[in-house]
């Protein structure tokens, strides 16, 4: 650490108090700020490499969208994040996300906890399962919108002029040794040559999972070619856990904060 507080372009900020906080002052300040942020303690995320995966990048895009006045600083940080990757994926946050953002007070992204790549015997479908832990959502928050985001790469070499039908299901009941009971959420036809983020609206499903966590059995996706042949999502270019960090599948939920966190008078 520097002794002075700098703004983005390394000038010393005019008339800010310039001195290093003493240890106990720092601890007092930390306690004070955590209470203002409404956090019981400072989080300790285990960031082996998660810090740079798709979810923080997407969230940084959203942050950048709403913090226009700090836009210059943020672009710096955003470029720093993006410069860590070879491929500059298409813009993450779409117009739809920004509209969700307008009436949300809080946005949370959830890393995909588990992924079963069920490459089953031919008579049963290929499919991929995803699970998200929504238990960290602060008490009583209402999900105003929620998306499951999946990156699709171009696979026109292997499937020339081919189209796929991608289907997203909510897992309703798991059956050992058999296909699970599924609830169809959305089907979408895509060209094999298409590349970019796919967003699937899972607002109703997320609200169900928040209200009754035991129903949270995750999502399933399956892919068929135009002649009805079931292929693995990976063949169709859908990026899973073994794909590039910045293209990992994740879920994002927008919340309307019900109770306003009142700061204690200091």
């Amino acid at each position, binding site marked *: 650490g520097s002794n002075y507080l700098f703004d983005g372009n390394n000038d010393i900020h005019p008339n800010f108090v310039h001195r290093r906080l003493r240890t106990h002052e*720092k601890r007092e300040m930390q306690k004070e700020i955590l209470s203002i942020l409404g956090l019981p303690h400072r989080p300790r995320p285990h960031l082996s490499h998660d810090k740079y995966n798709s979810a*923080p990048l997407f969230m*940084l895009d959203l942050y950048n969208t*709403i*913090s226009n006045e700090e836009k210059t600083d943020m672009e710096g*940080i955003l470029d720093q994040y993006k410069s860590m990757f070879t491929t500059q994926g298409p813009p993450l946050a779409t117009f739809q996300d920004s509209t969700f953002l307008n009436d949300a007070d809080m*946005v949370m992204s959830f890393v995909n906890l588990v992924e079963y790549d069920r490459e089953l015997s031919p008579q049963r479908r290929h499919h991929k399962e995803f699970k998200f832990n929504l238990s960290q959502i602060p008490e009583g928050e209402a999900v105003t919108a929620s998306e499951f985001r999946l990156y699709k790469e171009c696979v026109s070499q292997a499937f020339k002029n081919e189209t796929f039908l991608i289907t997203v299901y909510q897992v309703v009941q798991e059956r050992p040794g058999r296909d699970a009971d599924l609830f169809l959420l959305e089907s979408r036809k895509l060209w094999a040559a298409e590349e970019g983020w796919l967003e699937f609206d899972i607002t109703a499903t997320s609200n169900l999972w928040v209200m009754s966590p035991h129903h949270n059995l995750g999502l399933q996706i399956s892919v068929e070619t135009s002649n009805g042949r079931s292929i693995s999502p990976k063949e169709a270019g859908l990026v899973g856990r073994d794909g590039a960090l910045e293209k990992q599948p994740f879920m994002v939920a927008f919340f309307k904060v019900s109770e306003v966190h009142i700061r204690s008078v200091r």
Partner: protein
Amino acid sequence: STGKRRQQNRNRSTQPQEAAKGPGISDYNSSDQKTACRKHELYVSFRELGWQDWIIAPEGYAANYCDGECSFPLNAHMNATNHAIVQTLVHLMNPENVPKPCCAPTKLHAISVLYFDDNSNVILKKYKNMVVRACGCH
């Protein structure tokens, strides 16, 4: 003890000129500019607090604070007459209390903070009333 205090008050109330001797209009306006109520810079740097491992953005925020003597609030709606009326009403309700305008924020802005939670999920949250943009006498 209250007895003595009441005695004092009795003394005080018997000498009206004493009450009138309260701070006159002129006293209010003579407050030294450098101590007049105004906004003071205070920058909270998350980096200086050692939190850049879990707070993704911003690097910090200009919280600021209000401090300084409250000069007689002779602004638009609070002219001398209105102030005298307010003063009188407050005095009637609570004779011992000499109302004094206090220096506090008049305009507050929100900030958004982007951070990791314990499970490496990412949270983007708006926090209201975090930045003091203007101060005034209440």
